């Protein structure tokens, strides 16, 4: 199967081409079929490649289908690398991607633009798989930019809605800011390392670090800048909530499960570079922790069901970066995987609700949906329990690992642990606020809305993801609860170099401490759920009372700390104003003036020349003959003078 690794991204590309060129002619049923089938093939090949990888001892397989760039000593093969890290990623991307494609068949059933939808979705999967399979920074960058493009196309899928078009542009522009950092980092890497291939860069990194530590810090910070754009971290997170304008399956696939985790993947892939520059790891940890609690606080008061999930995604991505920042790379990737399961499930469940409620997204106009849509309710509940960290669900295992690592790691700190724990409390609260508001209590929607359970094509993926949200974490079941931390061992070959660089883990922590912290993490989850139950089920008037009492804080959270407005005033408006000034003064007057002036000069010169074109044949012939005689005479005269 390893020889087929290079075909894994190719199948969705084939689907994109077929749907892009023939989709309209073949109709929407065929479009859905092609979209799902190509991703399914990718998934099956990925499974095969994964099992083949388990049987090779060095746990790494590199294949280069063709040479991409060869200029002088700059040589970039278009090469793919399969190792435990990329194997996990391709399984998540193609597996969750396939489920979401199937779900889309039902969700987008009424949309006449299905071929376009599936072609974009397939293109996204192609770029995402390229990104995670890449063996060097340039190939990774292709995928990186490609997923950004697809994100733009799919957020603005309903481009006739101005807000969707604006959201797509915002996502693209904010991502570009981050990409600038990433591309600068690649330039710096090539300039100083002379190569962009991962293994060679990481081999030479310790030498470069010894020679100039500041250089690696710069590279690390620039790489992380790219990650903050793609993975929606402070200060570039503002595009993700707006990205909810896209179709809900798109939010599930791109803006929850896969694309936004690209930054986490990239930092984990470059773990050696980050470990060699401790400052960058500290920055990653602080930004991650700050984003986690900041986004969670905004999720508390959102009334749009998808906005809650969007802020929750930002917050959970913060968790992953926190884990990477304290050197727990495997824990970060583990949370990435479990998060892909339960957050995709949450989004698809939310999509199911929106579908059933005829595009209603406001939690205040839902309520009591539990009986109308049991499958959606139960699967959503499982996912909510998972993200709240209730054992033995997937979210508990991965989140507890991050909490423990942030406390016990030699570069961790109790402060990071505290922030993460408070975030866990908030997470459990806002998630169950959502569950109670949407599915429990009184009906708050008008009589002409008749919620109904979604069709099988939507319900089945929910069930599969529900199962994964329960058992997905068991492969990393912690040792102290009798597990084997298999996931961490599986990823160990990828991170062993980074772990050697980082300060050694001291074995001093007692088992009691670990059990105690685990109990705390379970407790905060349960407290959050109970708190939500008390406010939104027991005494529904309580939130109103609190809102009145803390109006200031409530408005601050509801308006998202006015960050959008601040960015608008400080960056966007001055930039647009300056651009307009340059456009009027420089473009119109200087550049256009010069171009038009030259054109006018040519015109007036031509007016002189045109008077010689009389159109009369004989005059032309005579002139020509006389000219020939004169020229010939001159040549003869010169010849005579020279020779004699």
């Amino acid at each position, binding site marked *: 199967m390893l020889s087929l690794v290079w075909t894994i991204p190719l199948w969705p590309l084939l689907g994109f081409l077929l749907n892009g060129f023939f989709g309209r002619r073949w109709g929407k049923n065929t479009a859905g079929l092609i979209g799902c089938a190509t991703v399914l093939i990718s998934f099956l090949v990925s499974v095969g490649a994964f099992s083949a990888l388990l049987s090779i001892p060095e746990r790494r397989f590199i294949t280069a289908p063709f040479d991409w760039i060869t200029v002088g000593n700059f040589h970039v093969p278009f090469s793919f690398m399969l190792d435990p890290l990329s194997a996990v990623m391709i399984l998540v991307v193609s597996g969750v991607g396939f489920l979401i494609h199937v779900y889309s068949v039902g969700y987008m059933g009424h949309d006449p633009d299905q071929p376009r939808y599936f072609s974009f979705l397939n293109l996204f999967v192609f770029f995402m798989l390229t990104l995670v399979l890449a063996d060097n920074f340039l190939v990774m960058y292709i995928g990186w930019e490609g997923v950004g493009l697809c994100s733009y196309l799919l957020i603005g899928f309903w481009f006739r809605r101005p807000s969707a078009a604006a959201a797509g542009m915002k996502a693209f522009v904010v991502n570009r800011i981050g990409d600038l950092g990433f591309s600068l980092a690649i330039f710096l890497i090539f300039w100083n390392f002379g190569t962009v291939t991962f293994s060679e860069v990481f081999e030479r990194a310790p030498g470069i670090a010894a020679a100039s530590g500041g250089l690696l810090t710069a590279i690390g910070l620039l790489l992380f800048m790219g990650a903050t754009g793609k993975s929606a971290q402070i200060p570039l997170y503002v595009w993700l909530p707006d990205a909810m304008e896209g179709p809900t399956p798109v939010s599930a696939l791109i803006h929850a499960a896969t694309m936004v985790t690209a930054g986490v993947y990239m930092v984990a892939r470059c773990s050696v570079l980050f470990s060699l520059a401790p400052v960058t790891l500290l920055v990653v940890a602080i930004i991650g922790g700050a984003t986690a609690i900041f986004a969670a606080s905004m999720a508390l008061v959102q009334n749009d069901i998808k906005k809650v999930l969007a802020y929750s995604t930002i917050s959970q991505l913060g968790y992953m970066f926190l884990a990477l920042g304290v050197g727990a790379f495997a824990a970060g990737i583990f949370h990435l995987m479990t998060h892909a399961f339960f957050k995709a499930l949450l989004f698809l469940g939310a999509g199911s609700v929106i579908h059933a409620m005829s595009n209603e997204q406001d939690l205040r106009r839902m309520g009591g949906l539990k009986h109308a849509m049991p499958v959606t309710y139960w699967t959503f509940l499982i996912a909510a329990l998972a993200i709240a960290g209730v054992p033995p669900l997937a979210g508990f295992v991965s989140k507890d690992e991050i909490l423990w690592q942030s406390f016990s790691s030699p570069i961790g700190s109790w402060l990071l642990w505290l922030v993460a724990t408070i975030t866990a409390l908030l997470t459990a609260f806002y998630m169950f606020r959502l569950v109670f508001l949407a599915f429990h209590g009184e009906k708050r929607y008008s009589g002409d809305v008749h919620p109904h359970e979604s069709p099988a094509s939507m319900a089945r993926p929910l069930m599969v993801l529900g199962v994964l949200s329960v058992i997905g974490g068991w492969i990393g079941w912690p040792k102290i609860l009798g597990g084997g931390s298999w996931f961490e061992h599986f990823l160990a070959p990828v991170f062993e170099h980074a772990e050697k660089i980082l300060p050694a883990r001291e074995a001093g922590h007692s088992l009691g401490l670990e059990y105690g912290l685990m109990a705390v993490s379970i407790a905060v989850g349960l407290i959050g759920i109970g708190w939500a139950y008390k406010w939104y089920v027991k005494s529904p008037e309580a939130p109103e009372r609190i809102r009145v009492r803390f109006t200031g804080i409530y408005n601050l959270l509801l308006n998202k700390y006015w960050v959008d407005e601040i960015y608008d005033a400080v960056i966007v408006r001055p930039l647009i104003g300056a651009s307009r000034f340059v456009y009027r003064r420089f473009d119109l007057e200087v550049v256009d003036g010069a171009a038009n002036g030259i054109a006018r000069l040519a015109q007036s010169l031509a007016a002189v020349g045109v008077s010689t074109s009389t159109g009369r044949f*004989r005059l032309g012939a005579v002139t020509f003959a006389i000219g020939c005689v004169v020229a010939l005479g001159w040549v003869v005269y010169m010849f005579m003078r020279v020779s004699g």
Partner: protein
Amino acid sequence: MNALPVPLGNYIILSGILFSLGVIGVLTARNAIVILMSIELMLNAANLLLVVFARVHGDLGGQVMVFFVLTVAAAEAAVGLAILVAVFRLKGSVDVDRLNILKG
């Protein structure tokens, strides 16, 4: 140097006469077909000299060049006549004094 049956100067004079006739034809004729024929005359005047000097210098290059000139002349005649047919259809005559559509 190879011997010539006639002195070299005679060839050059003949060629000059032919070329001059061609030039006069182009400048004075009103019928475009006569002009085309005059052009052929000028080309062949040049061809004659090429052949003669090829013989004089014992260098076949000049004769080869004549073949190229003939080929180009044939193509030129074909294109020229085709244009004249088109012009005749448009104007009803091939009198060059009545053609002035190239006026700028």
